[in-house]
């Protein structure tokens, strides 16, 4: 059973499957759009939906490493880039619903709004921070930057996730259940990393502890 799962996870079909699955939220929105089923305020509905999906995909992406280690499934690392890029895809849609209907595509006006409203500022900052990660997501860029530097850059996803939750929390008027829920998930995922980092024996120590083979 486990072997079959691992075999599937390692196959190219798994990637196709995850890709199509990640498109489902978008297809559902398009479908609802055709049916005229986007509520009385379609713009706001699309803003909220694309924002929700951005946060969810950021969380999916952050789940990969803990999943991989806790379940001992190294294969799932293959999906991390795709999930991260889907987070970026949905945040782009989210940004467009703001730049277009809210700001009438007026970039100067938009930047003023970004500077003035903390809730927009943090959302925009998270969006901007995601851009270099999306650009450097290719194997070529890992090579060019070197693994260490590349990894350091891509740790900014932690900041993006935190900013995303704050953005949501500052948006709602009084019912904070959903932003709190996302905040809790991000919190757990980040604390797990902190714990793993503190719990990890230091690299030199590992080298020293290699048992000397008895001659």
């Amino acid at each position, binding site marked *: 059973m486990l072997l079959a799962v691992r075999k599937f996870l390692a196959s190219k079909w798994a990637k196709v499957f995850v890709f199509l699955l990640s498109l489902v939220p978008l297809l559902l929105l398009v479908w609802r759009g055709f049916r005229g089923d986007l*509520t*009385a*305020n379609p713009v706001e509905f699309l803003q909220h939906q694309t924002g929700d999906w951005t946060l969810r995909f950021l969380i999916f992406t952050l789940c990969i490493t803990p999943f991989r280690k806790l379940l001992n499934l190294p294969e799932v690392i293959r999906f991390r880039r795709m999930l991260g890029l889907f987070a970026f895809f949905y945040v782009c849609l989210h940004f467009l619903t703001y730049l277009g*209907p809210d700001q009438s595509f007026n970039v100067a006006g938009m930047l003023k*709004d970004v500077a003035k*409203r903390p809730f927009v500022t943090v959302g925009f900052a998270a969006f901007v921070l995601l851009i270099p990660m999306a650009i450097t997501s290719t194997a070529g860029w890992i090579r060019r930057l070197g693994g260490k530097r590349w990894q350091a850059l891509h740790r900014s996803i932690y900041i993006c996730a935190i900013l995303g939750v704050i953005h949501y929390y500052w*948006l709602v008027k*009084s*019912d904070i*259940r959903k932003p709190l829920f996302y905040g809790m998930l991000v919190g757990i995922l980040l604390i797990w990393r902190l714990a793993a980092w503190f719990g990890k024996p230091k690299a030199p120590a590992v080298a020293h502890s290699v048992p000397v083979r008895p001659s």
Partner: protein
Amino acid sequence: MLIKLASVLALADSTRKEAYFNRRSFLRGLGIAGAATVVGERFSSLLSPSTTAFAGTKLTTIKSNYRVDEKISSENDVTHYNNFYEFGSDKGDPAKNAQNFRTSPWVVSVEGEVKTPRKFSMDEILTLAPLEERIYRHRCVERWSIVVPWIGYSLSTVLKLVEPSPKAKYVAFESFYDPKQMPQARYTGLAYPYVEGLRLDEAMHPLALLCVGMYGETLPNQDGAPVRMVIPWKYGYKSIKSIVKIRLQSSEPPTSWNRQAPNEYGFYSNVNPNVDHPRWSQATERRLGEIYMHKTLMFNGYSDQVASLYSGMDLKKFH
């Protein structure tokens, strides 16, 4: 008098769709004996004035001069996208969760600093004055807006009846609250019952509407049945729904959103494009049914009528 009679008859005459279906299943279940009881019930409701004002009952109205010349929002949009936190915080929640809200019998108590405190039944409220259809702009603090044909009459009609004493300076309103009927309320972050307030001169202003209907019918449950306020120059949350108490008093009453976030929602809450919400601009708004934003008007376009109420006041401070 004719108009009063007409509206009473319109009420007594009509049968709410839902009630009709209930009766049918009731008939099927109980047979003849049940049928006799139900028929009897119907007759009695025709003979004596009805004590019920179900949602979706046609109302007879007279024309009013308070009508903005703008496109009226789609009834379906207005009734399926709104805030009524007692029924949940999502704007689709009220339409879903208020379906079984019991609005009959209903009594509104008008009390406090008045000469003759009184409890009004819904039938009395529906017949105190001719019902007017008024077309108002309605602007939510969340930057969406609608144009609605409300039905009702000026709140001043009721206030004059109870004769405010010289001590009365403010009017406090209270909504109905029943956690059993409104189980979603406690997750919404507000304290209930929902309360609102006006200065007495604001409450006496003819634009301040005691509202019993919209789009030609009694109020749908989700829009604040059976009786609510509509104060068109203030943000939507001032227009308190499903009112059970109106209290005149000498001090400024607490208001729900102000209690929840004092820096964001003031007592006055006049629509003002120049005073931003701390988290977003109030300069623009989106009409339901439209994509792009358009400019928000001072006092929601009612400056000519209400600006004098606030002459000399710093509207930034008293937002």
